[in-house]
């Protein structure tokens, strides 16, 4: 029986998967080096910024830091923080400016190795290519701990992907699990809406919004901390899995640490260690979590102070300061009965993970992480962008894509040129 339509297999040198800031930065670098490529996007450009973020979210980085290869923020509020609508505009405009060959509404269903590269299958067709750049993001799936399965049925489980604003939560108290940027922002917003909020705090990264009169991310940038390379980081595995810093982008540049949440009426409890017979059980180790985060923050601030002194910048900034240590509650609850109606919903601010279920290349370890060396994946011609501390501490921030994309495209071009004769 004849086929209704023949399957055409398209040949192209490089396929970039994902049209977010990373994929578009890679595209810009590939174009600059005259490498023919396409950028495949399951939705529209900047898709996850459009669909997988809550209403009030703003970037953690100030506008002046929003830059991509050949492109930068040129608006009138360099110290502000973009809303999601503005981020989508910023990235979509980049796709146009960079003339990126984006194919929207094209979902990759599999990537399989061939003798000379990869076969990329999508919902619209098949491509054969020599190299693939994975730029599909680090936050495809919210990580929800397995203990969520033990929740009583009348407590609603909510992920940051489901959450839009406090009005969408069921009436009553809310428990937020995790004190990352997501966790502290949601706990704050929900408490301000008049709800009782319990925040379960495990390992976290405390940062002031401003330090010595400057945005703390100005310090990260200027002092070179953000530029630290992945092969210079002491414990890379830990650095790559660290929760996001407790920051929020607001016009008043306020600090949103645990002391600010305590002042806003949020109840702090220890790490959620289990759910047993409808009881949430919290760790009694809260004080040490505070001590660790305070010590690490102070070490970082000392690094900034040392840099300012050595580089003669003390005159450009205010005097050194130290924040009040995190105030421990006189006694924190060790358990909470989830059957009594005090808590009606639980938000899992417990991180995200990438989804590589469509990647039929044996490069994913038993914990679901890609095996790669600074973005050069453990398979010929396969690259990844946009993961935490991929090549530098700044890698997962928008402006972090620039150096990473340029270096990985350099590597990709060397790979293509040294294997070209084998491909014939």
């Amino acid at each position, binding site marked *: 029986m004849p086929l209704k339509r023949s399957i055409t297999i398209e040949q192209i040198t490089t396929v970039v998967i994902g049209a977010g800031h990373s994929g578009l930065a890679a595209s810009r670098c590939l174009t600059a080096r005259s490498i023919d490529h396409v950028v495949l996007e399951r939705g529209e450009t900047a898709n996850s910024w459009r669909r997988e973020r809550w209403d009030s979210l703003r970037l953690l980085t100030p506008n002046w830091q929003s830059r991509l290869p050949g492109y930068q923020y040129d608006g009138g509020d360099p110290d502000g923080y973009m809303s999601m609508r503005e981020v989508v505009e910023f990235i979509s405009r980049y796709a146009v400016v960079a003339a990126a060959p984006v194919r929207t509404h094209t979902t990759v269903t599999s990537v399989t190795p061939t003798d000379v590269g990869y076969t990329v299958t999508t919902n619209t067709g098949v491509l054969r290519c020599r190299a693939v750049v994975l730029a599909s993001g680090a936050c495809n799936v919210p990580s929800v701990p397995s203990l969520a399965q033990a929740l009583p049925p009348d407590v609603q489980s909510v992920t940051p992907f489901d959450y839009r604003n406090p009005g969408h939560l069921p009436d009553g108290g809310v428990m937020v699990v995790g004190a990352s940027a997501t966790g502290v922002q949601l706990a704050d917003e929900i408490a301000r809406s008049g709800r009782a909020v319990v925040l379960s705090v495990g390992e976290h990264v405390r940062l002031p919004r401003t330090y010595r009169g400057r945005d703390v991310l100005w310090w990260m940038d200027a002092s070179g901390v953000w530029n630290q390379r992945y092969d210079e980081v002491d414990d890379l595995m830990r650095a790559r899995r660290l929760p996001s810093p407790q920051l929020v982008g607001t016009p008043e540049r306020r600090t949103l640490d645990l002391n600010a949440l305590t002042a806003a009426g949020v109840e702090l409890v*220890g790490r959620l260690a289990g759910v047993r017979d409808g009881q949430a059980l919290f760790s009694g*180790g809260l004080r*040490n979590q505070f001590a660790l985060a305070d010590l690490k923050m102070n*070490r970082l601030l000392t690094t900034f102070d040392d840099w300012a002194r050595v580089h003669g910048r003390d005159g450009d900034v205010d005097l050194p300061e130290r924040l009040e240590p995190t105030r421990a509650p006189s006694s924190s609850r060790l358990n909470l009965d989830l059957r009594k109606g005090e808590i009606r919903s639980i938000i899992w601010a417990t991180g995200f993970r990438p989804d590589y279920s469509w990647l039929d290349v044996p490069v994913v370890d038993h914990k679901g992480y890609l095996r790669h060396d600074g973005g050069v994946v453990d398979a010929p011609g396969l690259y990844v962008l946009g993961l935490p501390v991929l090549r530098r501490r700044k890698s997962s921030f928008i402006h972090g894509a620039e150096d990473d994309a340029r270096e990985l495209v350099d590597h990709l071009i060397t790979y293509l040129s040294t294997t070209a004769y084998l491909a014939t």
Partner: protein
Amino acid sequence: MAMTTVNNGVNVQALLDAREALKGAPEAAKFTWRASCKWQNGTHSKTKVQSFFGLGQEQQHKTETSCEADHPEVFASEDHAITPIEYVLVGLASCLTAGVAAVAQNRGIQLRSVESKLEGRMDIRGILGIDSDVRNGYDDVKVTFKIDADASKEEIEAIVAQSQKRSAVYDVITNPVNVTVEVA
């Protein structure tokens, strides 16, 4: 800075090597600790500890340790030895202290002395069944370290914090654990 050899008596290199080796062999990392207890009389018992399982095979301590426990005379016992709940303080103190030595060694910090005092507060109305709202065990445990070392106060605080972060006994006290008690 002058180079000096830091020696807290901890073979950190062996620990780091083990950490690397066990990354690729998660089965070998599974240990089972054991104790065997025998009732003596009254509230007095003797517990012996020697064998354990780890690195994929049976292991033995060099010698068997025997630990006696009893209750004090104010509990109408004969006070042959310390109470079981005091053993929890022994475990916590020795675990955190070992951690302090190992972390200091790893960070190149010479220790001269490490002392700690522990206090566990407990309301005995719990174990006596007087008030069901009072828990049986400690409701508050306080550890105070006094450390003399070639390090700043902040570095010492960081060592103590890291020691808690990697302590098995601290973990098992602060977090719930499944306990199964059966009659054979």
